[in-house]
């Protein structure tokens, strides 16, 4: 092959220009023409100079623009599909067109900075909070937040805790129970848990009601579980997660729930058998 007759651009300049054209939400033609986009023009990056399109070989079968366009189209759909997989309920509720628009706007504000596509939706629930979609779907941020918690629980390692039987009777009060790393605790203003379950079961539910929920998300031996719990139970789990001593957590739980010791003991028994408690730390 002959030596190139052109002045070669630096690899960094070439890559920066290609990144710009591939990720520009207006599409390759409109971006090259410098057209204003549908989205707020302030979001759109200006074209890095010098333009590198002339470096891309064109053939009679495909122009340079068509060739770059394959990558631009692939970029959007690949990331769109990753978001749709992590937020299936949001995708279902919005429908294809509106979800595409939300994804496009999200990618402009929050392009992937991780080697792992699993991190892409990190800011999605907060992002959906600010959208105009919220007027029509006020529960959308809660639903997105629940779906992200499920995603994080699925990809968290399960704890390999020490046996609770090793704790002496006098040590329980000061012991700190470790919640399993798969546990996620969240509150929602809308009753999205049952709504999400019905969507997941492919049935189209009515919109969720405005009702505060305290949700527990965790992974058992097989898959992620979502449970609505009472506020005192949720608070107790949160305190355990924050490392508070068990004795104090139980005192607060008894006061807040007005529950008998027997009932509280039953809750703990259930949490332990469900794998929510992965270990215990004893005071030095």
């Amino acid at each position: 092959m002959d030596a190139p007759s052109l002045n070669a651009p630096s690899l960094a300049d070439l890559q920066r220009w290609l990144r710009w054209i591939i990720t520009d939400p207006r599409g390759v033609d409109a971006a090259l023409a410098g057209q204003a986009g549908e989205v707020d023009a302030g979001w759109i990056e200006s074209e890095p100079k010098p333009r590198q399109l002339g470096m891309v070989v064109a053939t009679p079968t495909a122009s340079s623009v068509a060739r770059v366009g394959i990558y631009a189209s692939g970029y959007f759909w690949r990331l769109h599909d990753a978001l749709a997989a992590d937020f299936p309920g949001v995708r279902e509720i919005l429908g294809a067109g509106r979800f595409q628009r939300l994804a496009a706007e999200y990618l402009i504000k929050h392009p992937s900075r991780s080697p792992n596509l699993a991190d892409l939706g990190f800011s999605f629930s907060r992002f959906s909070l600010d959208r105009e979609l919220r007027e029509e779907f006020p529960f959308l941020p809660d639903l997105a937040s629940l779906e992200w918690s499920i995603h994080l629980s699925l990809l968290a390692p399960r704890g390999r805790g020490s046996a609770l039987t090793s704790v002496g009777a006098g040590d329980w009060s000061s012991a700190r129970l470790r919640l399993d790393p798969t546990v996620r605790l969240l509150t929602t203003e809308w009753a999205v848990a049952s709504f999400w379950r019905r969507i997941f079961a492919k049935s189209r539910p009515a919109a969720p009601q405005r009702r505060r929920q305290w949700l527990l998300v965790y992974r058992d031996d097989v898959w992620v579980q979502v449970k609505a719990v009472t506020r005192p139970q949720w608070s107790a789990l949160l305190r355990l997660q924050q490392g508070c001593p068990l004795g104090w957590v139980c005192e607060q739980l008894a006061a807040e729930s007005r529950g008998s010791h027997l009932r509280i003991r039953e809750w703990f028994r259930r949490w332990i058998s469900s794998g929510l408690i992965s270990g215990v730390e004893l005071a030095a």
Partner: protein
Amino acid sequence: MAPRLESPAFGLPHLGVGIGLRPRHYRDVLTTRPVVPWFEVISENFMGTRGGEGGRPLEILEQVRENYPVVLHGVSLNIGSTDPIRLDYLSRLKWLVRRIEPAWVSDHLCWTGVDGENLHDLLPLPYSSKVVRHVAERVAQVQDVLGRQILLENVSSYLTFMHSEMTEWEFLSEVARCADCGILLDVNNVYVSATNHQFDAREYLNGVPASRVGQLHLAGHDDGGALLVDTHDRPVSRQVWELYEYAIERFGPVNTLIEWDDKLPSLPKLLEEAARARRIQESVLGRAVPQRAVAG
């Protein structure tokens, strides 16, 4: 007595024809233990989120690993980028390598992002001696950290650059030689790129040093009209099977993998594709090609 395995390609164990392990088949693989000599997985899918561990997917992979050899195939090494190599990523990969003990590790000869942004695509590089040196230095850094040689795969491409100084196969071969790494030769990618850029796919195969080819990939592509697109969503095409025959003549019975990522068929259908690759190896070589024995 266990069958005698072929001479290793690029010093790698000869495993035979494997398939990609994808979530849709997790349950089938764990419950039916299909007769397949090895699995390849996408490394990033088992790294968890933001520095965490791999969660449920990793638990499943470790169960699979109890019965099968596994190969780690990455998509985010970003070896051709002008950004520094991400040491956090490399450290996660090294952690995964220790945990899974893969038969080998591979990624792509491409760039996937710049200025800290990841496009999650396999973008082509200009084929020049300057870029060869740039990539080779980075591969050396990766191999130092991992403490092992890696394989780099040729990507399907839809564009090339005016200022390239050499052919793609010369570029691939030079990178492998300078970096002292192996080659994962994707036969479908060779065919797709040969069609898109109008070069001879067999000349490409002839130009690659056989001693460095440790693995072959086979996959399906879409004929989008003006350009072929590497989609991994359908069976291997007739033309790619023909090119695979030629690759086996040229490289011998190299470890081969059927890659299928989208619109996944049932596990038996995927295994049929692997069986076809095995039959081609045997037909071309005129003898049985031992596969790694698997307890079903």
